[in-house]
């Protein structure tokens, strides 16, 4: 398949990719991917067996130390797993939330007890951790968050509403940002908590979406938390969120999503004879070029991470660039496949089991999730160009 070879992989990395790919090509994984694609409305991917199969080998979080369930490998191997899962049609939300975000926070600033408690279960694919940052009135402007931790003896009671979060209906624990100290500066006084989601004071309500997977509204009503539930230092949440979210951002995941869609469109073009028609072939070649460029940029960020020198501007550029390609890829899907690309998985006659149609619905989410395009551009404009 085109675009799967990043080039510049070491022989060991190349071998690792081969082994991951072989696992994901097994019949049981293919059957699972088909099953997921055909889920009826309202059903979504949760604790997937493939996460456990990867986890058994330390591959779900290959860059984590072995003592926490990883394989003691590097950023490249982590990127390889992310790419291969997406290209194999395995949804990556649970992986991104549990491993790339919450797991990463735990690894970087968690106490030994917190790490031992959560990391092995996350790396084994047995536990799901979710992210509770966004609120009804605090999205891009996250420092406006109003979820509050009120002092209660030696701990706190948490009150607030978190929205647009995913998978919380399945999660065991969530990384939750809350205000511990009122301050005239909005960024001050925010603390990160590990919130047990299956507590009596946590109510998870569905927020139906355009996509197959729902958002949640999580209402937190007086859950009691102690120092043991604080991740990092009290009142230091803002700095952590800014620093650590950047580490998750390389663009590799979004690139893989775009690549999977473009590959499907190219396959359809070949199957219908349209690949031989320049009216379709030239735009396909142009987008293929853009995705290869995006891939190179994303992998440059992976290499920076691996070398211990992440580049926040480069990461923002990579995330922005690859997610901007998704709409043109989807437009081309409509050109090449016509109305067939508009048929859903539930129609029964959709090409590729409705993957393109689902892609059309998910299209806008990539420019919003993990930092919107505008947030990326602001980062680039300010940090790289001295603007704004």
């Amino acid at each position, binding site marked *: 398949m085109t675009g799967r070879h990043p080039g510049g992989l070491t022989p060991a990395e190349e071998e690792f990719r081969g082994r991951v790919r072989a696992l994901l090509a097994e019949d049981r994984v293919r059957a699972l991917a088909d099953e997921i694609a055909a889920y*009826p*409305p309202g059903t979504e991917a949760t604790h997937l067996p493939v996460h456990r199969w990867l986890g058994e080998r330390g591959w779900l979080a290959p860059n984590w130390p072995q003592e926490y369930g990883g394989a003691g490998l590097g950023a490249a191997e982590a990127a390889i797993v992310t790419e291969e899962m997406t290209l194999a049609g395995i949804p990556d939300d649970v992986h991104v939330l549990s491993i790339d975000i919450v797991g990463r926070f735990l690894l970087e600033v968690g106490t030994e007890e917190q790490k031992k408690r959560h990391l092995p279960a996350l790396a084994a694919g047995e536990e799901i951790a979710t992210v509770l940052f*966004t609120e009804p*009135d605090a*999205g*891009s*402007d996250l420092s*406006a968050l109003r979820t509050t931790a009120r002092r209660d003896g030696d701990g706190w009671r948490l009150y607030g509403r978190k*929205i*647009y979060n995913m998978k919380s209906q399945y999660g065991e624990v969530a990384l939750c940002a809350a205000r511990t100290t009122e301050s005239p500066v909005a960024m001050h006084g925010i603390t990160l908590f590990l919130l047990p989601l299956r507590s009596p004071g946590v109510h998870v309500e569905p*927020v*139906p*979406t*355009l*996509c197959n997977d729902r*958002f949640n509204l999580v209402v937190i009503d007086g859950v009691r938390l102690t120092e043991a539930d604080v991740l990092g230092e009290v009142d230091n949440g803002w700095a952590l969120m800014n620093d650590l979210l950047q580490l998750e951002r390389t663009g590799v995941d979004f690139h893989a999503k775009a690549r999977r869609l473009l590959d499907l469109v190219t396959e359809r073009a070949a199957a*219908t004879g349209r690949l031989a028609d320049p*009216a*379709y072939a030239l735009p396909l070649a142009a987008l293929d070029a853009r995705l290869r460029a995006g891939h190179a940029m994303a992998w440059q960020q992976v290499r920076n991470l691996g070398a211990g020198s992440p580049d926040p501007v480069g990461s923002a550029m990579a995330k922005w660039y690859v997610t901007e390609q998704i*709409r043109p890829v989807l*437009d081309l899907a*409509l*050109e090449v*496949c*016509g*109305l*067939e*690309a*508009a*048929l*859903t998985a*539930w*129609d*029964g*006659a959709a090409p590729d089991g409705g993957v393109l*149609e689902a892609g*059309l*619905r998910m*299209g*806008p*989410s990539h*420019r*919003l999730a993990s930092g*919107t*395009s*505008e947030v990326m*551009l602001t980062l680039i404009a300010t940090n790289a160009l001295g603007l704004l």
Partner: protein
Amino acid sequence: MTTAVLDELRELFGQELAPVLRRLGERPRGAADGPAARLGEEDAGTRDAVWATLAELGAFGPHREAERVAIAELMGAALYQSPYADTVTAAALLAATGDPAYGPLLDEAARGAAAVALAVREDGLSGPARPGPLTVHREADGYAVSGRRPFTAFAADCGHLAVVGAGSDGEPVLALVPRERPGVRLTRRDDIGRGDLYAVELDRAAVSGAVHPVGALWPAVLAAARVRQAAALAGAARAAVELAAERLRSRQAFGQPLARQQAPAHRLAALAAEAATAAAFARSVAAAADRGEDVRATAAQVLYLAGDLARRAAAESVHLHGAHGMTEACDAQLFLRRAAVDSQWLGTGTELLREAAALLSDTPNPR
């Protein structure tokens, strides 16, 4: 059509009813068949009421194309889904044949008392400019036709299907097929637009009257339909932009409404300018059609521009609503859904550009 009537139509499809109309054709996802696929009673009531009002206002009657694009633009902005658009196109083609046998049906259609579905494509890959194959059978008591038309809108709501197809010599023919005859089978489809789309199987379905060659008629009828579709898409683009502007005015971030941020404001302003320009182009092509000019090339061009624009405007509207734009509760996503289908209903961008390119040297510049 008088200005007063247009004003009434503006009101019908205006701010007040638009939120209801936008969701009128909606079916729950994955509900292709079964009871959930049918419109709720309230929705069905509203739909009938809108149809009756359109009939009352004379929206179905013979009009100049300039008037028809004005109506289409209003309907597009409200994302109004109904058999209206295809009925108008089918009626134009039936009328163009000059066959008096179609008279009673055309009269009914002009009063809004009959709806006709247009069945042209044989697959989703190629648009209606090249109608799918159709087998015509000579029977003892008339004609019958066989073929498949997997993308036929509102077929279940229409008493007749105007089936356009390539006959044995490859030339387009028209056959009017009463829907409730043996040999006509409908299967409801499930599509991103959540509209009312059917796969129609015709197996020696009886034809009402003759089978007409329409090779000389279909291109002009299709061109006019494309101009109306372009106007509808320009209207949808405008409405998607307005919805986003409303959101930016009410959403606070960084201590002020998002509306004060220049980057999104400029992008919406640019889209608004494009939408107004596409609508102006549609009106001008419609006027040319009313003057009897050949508008095949310009119709393809305006639809290309409007289709592309409708998709971009919808995506931007969802984006500027933030995650809320991705929720079922937000109407921005309805524009995204509909644009994926409506923008290519009468041909994809590639097909339209190819047709326009083939006619370019014969198309005089505007002056």
